[in-house]
């Protein structure tokens, strides 16, 4: 046996000696003249070996030096925990060959592989080691959410109880079974969308509920989540809409057109898709979200700033699959698509591009603009098929003629009006305070805070039927307006048409 100082790991200072207990691991080295040490568990041993303990509990441990050589003694032995020497007062010599240790109020383990409690000889050599596992039993996992991509699979994620910190390796197992029959199954593909997630790739039934739960287990115990019951058809999501294109709308400085394709994976299923659009200015982190873009694949953003780059994303919610009455789950947002609004090259009074145009009001409220437009329509338009294109033409005409307006805002007649039959006549602008637009039109903020069907007093014209007023309340905080059409002017959410530079249309 090695010298009295040797333990399971021997000592670099021991004289080479025969090793009585050579494990298979070290068989080839036994008797090697310059390799005195060996893994000999019965030279010194720590008890308990690799214990598992609750946080806050105490530990009584011993380091016992066994066997040869004579004189091996507990005197001079000392302990370290994770490399730090423990205070002598925590140790005491139990007998000639045993050094005891008492630790109280243990903290959670510093590393997953266990805290290293080591018994050292007087010269610092390692005699024995034991790994402590100090932690907490798992708490009940909760907040299980699942979704199916195109009805082909199921991905679930959950939140571990106790914020996940048990200080011990805790194993999470997602289980599922058909509610009315079948055996328990265990999910096998973990960490697919984060550390607490699992993916079931196939063999899932539709039109029948599943029960899903999570079991958490560690060295100190186990816990089980509540059971989540769902039908695959009620948690369907899809890929983001592909082929999102954002483009300018002719020369209109405050609009961009967004087009996309409905997700192809669900094209064979009966469903109505809802879409959401969000957009932001290039150097901003604030997205503006447009809701309720129902079952359309194009939309027009208006009220944007001229000469500005915008990032746009679209996402899809499939609902009503196979008659399900539940909304689906929103897809991820599409990759951002960028486009810039045009900026006209009109020199200001000082020749600078950013100076306000003369004769224009400092702000261009939608309310005033739309009121003018309606007044113009009433007098001059006879449109069998009122369309947004018609409105665009009017706006383009307005931009062209704004230069000739005087301070009273007198409109100049032009043959470029949208009406195929009549020219727009001069119309005096209506001060915002005397707004007499459609009922429910908001006032001084210059925004439409409600848009209702026009008064029955308005003469009925075929084109007016195309004016649909969803009656939805717009978001007063949103900038710009959205016109989501399939060619028909559907709704206007809000005014504030234009940049602070006053490029709003009159």
């Amino acid at each position, binding site marked *: 046996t090695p010298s009295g100082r040797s333990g*399971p*790991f*021997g*000592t*670099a200072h021991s004289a080479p000696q025969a090793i009585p207990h050579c*494990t*298979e*691991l*070290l*068989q*080839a*080295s036994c008797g*090697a003249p310059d*390799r005195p*040490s*060996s*893994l000999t*568990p019965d030279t010194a041993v720590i008890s308990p*070996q*690799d214990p598992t303990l609750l946080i806050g509990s105490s530990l009584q441990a011993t380091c016992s030096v066994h066997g040869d050589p004579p004189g091996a003694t507990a005197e001079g032995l000392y302990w*370290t925990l*994770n*490399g*730090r020497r423990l205070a002598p007062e925590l140790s005491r010599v139990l007998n000639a060959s045993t050094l005891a240790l008492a630790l109280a109020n243990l903290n959670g383990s*510093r*590393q*997953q*592989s*266990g*805290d*290293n*409690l*080591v018994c050292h000889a007087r010269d610092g*050599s*390692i005699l*024995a*080691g*034991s*790994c402590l596992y100090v932690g907490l039993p798992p708490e009940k996992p909760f907040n299980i959410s699942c979704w199916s991509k195109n009805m082909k699979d199921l991905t679930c994620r959950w939140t571990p109880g106790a914020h996940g910190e048990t200080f011990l*390796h805790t194993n999470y197992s997602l289980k599922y079974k058909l509610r009315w029959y079948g055996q328990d199954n265990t999910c096998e593909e973990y960490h697919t969308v984060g550390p607490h997630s699992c993916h079931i790739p196939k063999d899932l039934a539709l039109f029948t509920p599943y029960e899903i739960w999570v079991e958490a287990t560690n060295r100190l115990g186990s816990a089980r989540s509540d059971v989540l019951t769902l039908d695959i058809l009620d948690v369907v999501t899809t890929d983001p809409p592909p082929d999102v294109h954002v483009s300018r709308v002719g020369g209109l400085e405050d609009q961009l057109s967004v087009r996309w394709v409905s997700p192809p994976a669900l094209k064979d299923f009966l469903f109505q898709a809802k879409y959401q659009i969000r957009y932001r200015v290039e150097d901003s982190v604030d997205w503006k979200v447009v809701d309720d873009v129902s079952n359309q694949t194009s939309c027009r953003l208006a009220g944007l700033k001229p000469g500005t780059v915008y990032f746009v994303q679209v996402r899809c919610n499939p609902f009503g699959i196979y008659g399900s009455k539940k909304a689906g789950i929103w897809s991820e947002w599409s990759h951002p698509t960028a486009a810039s609004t045009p900026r006209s090259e009109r020199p200001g009074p000082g020749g600078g591009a950013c100076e306000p145009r003369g004769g224009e009001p400092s702000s261009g409220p939608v309310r005033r603009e739309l009121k003018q437009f309606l007044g113009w329509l009433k007098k001059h338009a006879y449109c069998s098929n009122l369309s947004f294109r018609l409105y665009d033409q009017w706006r383009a005409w307005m931009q062209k003629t704004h230069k000739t307006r005087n301070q009273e805002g007198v409109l100049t007649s032009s043959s470029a009006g949208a009406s195929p039959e009549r020219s727009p006549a001069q119309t005096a602008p209506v001060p915002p305070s005397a707004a007499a637009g459609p009922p429910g039109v908001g006032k001084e903020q210059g925004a439409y805070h409600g848009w209702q069907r026009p008064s029955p007093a308005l003469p009925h014209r075929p084109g007016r039927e195309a004016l649909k007023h969803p009656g939805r309340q717009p978001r007063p905080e949103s900038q710009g307006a959205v016109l989501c059409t399939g060619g028909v002017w559907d709704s206007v959410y809000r005014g504030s048409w234009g940049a602070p530079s006053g490029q709003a249309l009159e």
Partner: protein
Amino acid sequence: MSRREGSLENPQADSSISPLPHLEAKIRQTHSLARLLTKYAEQLLQEYVQHQGDPFGLPGFSPPRLPVAGLSSPAPGHAGLPAPERLRLDAAALSALPPLLDVVRRHQAELNPRAPRLLRRLEDAARQARALGAAVEAVLAALGAEPREPRPEPAAAAAAAAAATATATDAGVFPAKVLGLRVCGLYREWVSRTEGDLGQLVPGGPA
């Protein structure tokens, strides 16, 4: 081809020898591989100690450098041996390492299941040791030198390593950590040694 210890010379001396440019290219390639694996071995060791916790990563920590399953560190006299003998020892060590690295990986899969990078490095190390060992044997064969001892069968090597697993596990977690440290250390020592031995054979390298 005349052989001087530790270098190749006079490629035109014997036209019956396999083309020297090919051999030189082979030596260079293998040397480059060894150099790369030396870096990886160092990274593996650092990653390993990090996950075992102190005192494994502390500068003063030095458990006895135990030989493992017949594999010792390179002997002090290794550098003085003839080149073919050095390469034989390198090849033998490299062939003994993969089963041991597999054992360590299995241990660590239980001890550190949330350390995927460590587990991947251990897996890669086993594969890389095999590749380097095979490359060194190819160089030996090209030099006309055969391994002195037959290599143990892979199954036998794996069985010995599996026994090591049981032994280390029975002895406790701490001895298993020390075993892994020793194996990772041996891996680093032997790939570094191989790099040095091949470097002496690279034309233009030190004689």
